[in-house]
């Protein structure tokens, strides 16, 4: 029997998000966006572009578990899943790099985001399938 848990979207669970945690994530996201902008202004878009892949969300999540032992297991699972999202980020960046000279910018960003989601979800399903088979 497969132990695979179905993928579900429950919008009501958004209410469980802690305001302090969300504020910390906002702060990390805002700070790294400003850093990326300042680095771009000073050293150019290639160097600034490196900071567009800074682990802002995960770094904020990891720092939240210091005094919340009950959050450790879910956060560790978050981090394991994040490897797949990060692999998708490489595809996102390659798509933008390859398509930007040819397509309108909005279409480039939408297509690249779709490619990120597709690759990350495909990797998840592939790894889960192999685990179930093994």
């Amino acid at each position, binding site marked *: 029997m497969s132990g695979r*848990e179905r*993928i*579900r*979207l*429950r*919008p009501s*669970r*958004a209410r*469980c*998000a802690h305001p302090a*945690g*969300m504020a910390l*994530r906002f*702060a990390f*996201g805002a700070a*790294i*966006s400003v850093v*990326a*902008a*300042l680095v771009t*202004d000073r050293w150019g*878009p*290639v160097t600034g*572009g*490196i900071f*567009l*892949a*800074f*682990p*802002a*969300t*995960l*770094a904020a*999540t990891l720092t*939240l578990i*210091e005094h919340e032992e009950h959050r450790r297991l879910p956060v*560790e*699972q*978050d*981090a*394991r*899943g*994040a*490897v*797949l*999202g*990060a692999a998708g*980020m*490489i595809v*996102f*960046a390659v798509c*933008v*790099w390859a398509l*930007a000279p040819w397509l*309108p910018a909005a279409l480039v*960003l939408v297509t690249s*985001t779709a490619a*990120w989601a597709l690759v990350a*979800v495909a990797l*998840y399903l592939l790894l889960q399938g192999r685990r179930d088979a093994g």
Partner: protein
Amino acid sequence: MSQVWLVALRGLFGGLLVMAFALLGEMVSPKKFAGIFAAGPAVALAGMSITVLHAGSRPLAESALGMIVGSVALVVYCALAVPVVRRLGAVTGSAAAVAVWLAVAGLGWWLMA
């Protein structure tokens, strides 16, 4: 628009998008699948959108070239985050993992330059 307002707008948009990805992660299950959203292109989408609105699409490909390097470093960061945080604790472990991200990204930048 002045440079200061532009940087502030990037910060605001970046923070909001990171929060949106985090909320999406809260709403989906199982937890390992939700983790995908912890490494979503939130900061990139914010930064690139503002760049396009302000300077057109020309700098987009160059930013993406740098982002490829940053993304490789992100994969290493995510793979190391759990063992490092387990060993050193949340804050010290996170800082050590970020240092690893900086080192890998710096090495990639040096190889590219």
